[in-house]
């Protein structure tokens, strides 16, 4: 008797909930669902917007989940509740591909372009001229003994001049993303490991003991020379302006947009520019991918048209709108090859076989 009003309110709220829930479950998904890397996000969203304007399809929903998080959602399985496309700022890992295949997902790989990673400082300071070896020596946790013997010592370098006499006598201070970031992964792999390999005896370790090799080349020092400045690249740009002695690590599009505030360091004689990244002469650039769920291509409305838009010359071409947004296009033949692969929807087999 006493509890009636409570149970009434509870019952009516539950009723509302179930009705809403069953309605939602019945409605078929009429938009494309895209997840994945925050680096690819600006480009997929650009295409999504243009696509929805040019066609009658609904605007795809693009979530920014990070490459790894995106892969997890994408490989969950096949069906309306799962994502159709995921963006990645690195290639899919063998383990991820296996997870996908186990859940019955056929993956179509689409390389869409490149992204440069820059090491920049404030315009008020002098532009740095670095090699990948300098970067490795300045930032690694352990470096080859300066006396020339083939042993490792904890990184003793305090200033850039210690690393290389040609560099200025300023304290090493690099602001960069935390380990969860794809930009950090790519920076470590391309810049640090690139420099690390220059030492013959370390490179020789790669075939003998891969883990030891990775530990040497991929571990960043933790004594304050490398500052984890968060995932937000705009924040790093602003910190660089406030502190002209520091260098920052971020994606090329942020350099492009803030060219009045910061300048990209020259790496191995190449300045990070649109052209030097496109022709691969700038050494620290990474490929960007989107991965498509083959089973969804004919089921979710607009998938084929969306992919056609993404791989059209006006989007990813040299003068396309994605280039305007800071994505570096692939060479022409590669574009044709990838576009053809997308049209045929060739699923990715074993990673070892390709490339």
């Amino acid at each position: 008797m006493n509890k009636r009003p409570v149970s009434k309110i509870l019952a009516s709220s539950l009723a509302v909930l179930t009705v809403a829930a069953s309605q939602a479950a019945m409605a078929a998904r009429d938009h494309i669902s895209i997840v994945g890397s925050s680096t690819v996000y600006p480009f997929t969203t650009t295409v999504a917007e243009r696509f929805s304007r040019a066609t009658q399809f609904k605007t795809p929903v693009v979530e920014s989940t990070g490459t790894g998080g995106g892969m997890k959602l994408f490989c969950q399985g096949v069906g309306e509740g799962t994502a159709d496309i995921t963006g990645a700022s690195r290639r899919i890992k063998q383990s991820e591909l296996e997870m996908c295949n186990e859940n019955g997902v056929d993956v179509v790989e689409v390389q869409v372009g490149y992204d440069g990673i820059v090491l920049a400082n404030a315009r008020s300071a002098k532009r740095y001229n670095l090699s990948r070896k300098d970067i490795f020596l300045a930032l690694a946790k352990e470096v080859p003994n300066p006396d020339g013997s083939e042993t490792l010592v904890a990184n003793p370098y305090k200033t850039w001049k210690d690393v290389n006499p040609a560099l200025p006598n300023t304290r090493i201070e690099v602001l960069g993303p935390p380990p969860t970031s794809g930009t950090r992964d790519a920076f470590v792999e391309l810049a640090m490991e690139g420099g690390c390999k220059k030492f013959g005896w370390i490179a020789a370790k790669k075939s003998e003991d891969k883990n030891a090799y990775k530990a040497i080349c991929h571990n960043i020092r933790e004594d304050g020379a490398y500052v984890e400045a968060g995932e937000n690249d705009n924040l790093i740009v602003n910190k660089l302006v406030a502190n002209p002695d520091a260098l920052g690590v971020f994606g090329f599009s942020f350099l492009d947009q803030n060219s009045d505030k910061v300048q990209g360091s020259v790496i191995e004689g190449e300045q990070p520019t649109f052209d030097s990244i496109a022709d691969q002469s700038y050494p620290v650039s990474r490929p960007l991918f989107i991965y498509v769920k083959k089973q969804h291509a004919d089921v979710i409305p607009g998938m084929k048209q969306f992919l056609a838009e993404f791989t059209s010359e006006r989007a990813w071409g040299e003068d396309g709108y994605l280039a305007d947004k800071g994505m570096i296009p692939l060479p022409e033949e590669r574009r044709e090859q990838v576009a053809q692969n997308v049209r045929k929807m060739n699923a990715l087999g074993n990673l070892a076989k390709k490339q």
Partner: protein
Amino acid sequence: MTDLSQAQVRERIEQSLARRHRKEKLFRGLGIASIAFGVLAVLVLFTDIISKGSGAFVQTAVQLEVTYDAAELGIDTVDEESLTWANFTGVVREALRERFPDVSGRSEKRELYSLVSTGAPFTLRDRLAANPELLGKTEKVWFAADDDVDTFYKSLDDSAGGFRGRTSERMAGWVEQLAESGELKKRFNTTFFTNGDSREPEQAGIRAALVGSLLTLLVTLALSFPIGVAAAIYLEEFAPRNRWTDLIEVNINNLAAVPSIVFGLLGLAIFINFFELPRSAPLVGGLVLTLMTLPTIIISSRAALKSVPPSIREAAMGMGASRMQVVLHHVLPLAMPGMLTGAIIGMAQALGETAPLLMIGMVAFIVDVPGGVTDPATVLPVQIFLWADSPERAFVEKTSAAIMVLLSVLIVMNASAVWLRKKLERRW
């Protein structure tokens, strides 16, 4: 001690009085200093946000003389189908070439075309759709300028001089030329309030996020308020005091302190994976935020019920009312103001949440304004986060402007809490 003369006593008292007054002054001073510090922090925050964000409420626009040439558009009649594939881009470009006839060469033309927003063709399409008789006619139309031009033109007023960045020498020249002849001006940015998100800063707006926030809060309020109040009434008025109710109380207090991301994970597991509700939907967002705000509402509702004097209950019982009548007729109306305040504070907290929404897919790029609780949507704080993370320079001011919108919604909510309390409150 007893032989102290009256004068001595007086002297001692005066001494201690002076000391006590000094202490009181110091205490007051500290209080004023801490308030001053708080006010200063708020002032700095507000001036920073307002100085950065006020630019977003105006937009640079370019006036062009366009001809709705049927041949250029490639259509004969104006109907829905022809409008979708008509070449409005060509018309806009033609208008730009006419305005600057001496532009030649590919790269120069590209720069010329990039003066106006990529949304310009759609402005034209909408105009023609609304007035089909314009076909074949010429008129002057204001278009939103490209975000690079917008940033450059706005920065001309800065003491530091113009931000050239991505605008070339030539483009800057055109902008100056247009500004001199009055074909380029700043206007109020209605787009910011009517559009959803966009990759082009000049077309990006807050509407989709605002509507998403409202829908999410609606679901949250509709569920958490009745459930919370019902739970509070039962626990406070009916439940026996024993170990079980103690356990429940401890758990409720505990839940109020759980980090919000945990609720997001729970929502992902239950609502999306088990009940298969759609991702990115305000319905799921509202459900997750309900879980999060329930403890706050229960705790504040119980406090409100407790503050109703027992004499009211006793008087009602003495008049022969049943316990349910006591609660519904007497206690609940008196406790309502406190409950509403608690609910509004809980809602304000829910409005500012992003972490749990990440897990259920509401951290997303949403262009279309959601029409219902199952449409994909995002919320205001997420929009702020996404814009703050964007490389385009023009998003800096949009970010601050979005913060201003969020703050004003919060101020309205909190002010209404105060107003409701004032209006409904009964004093004894």
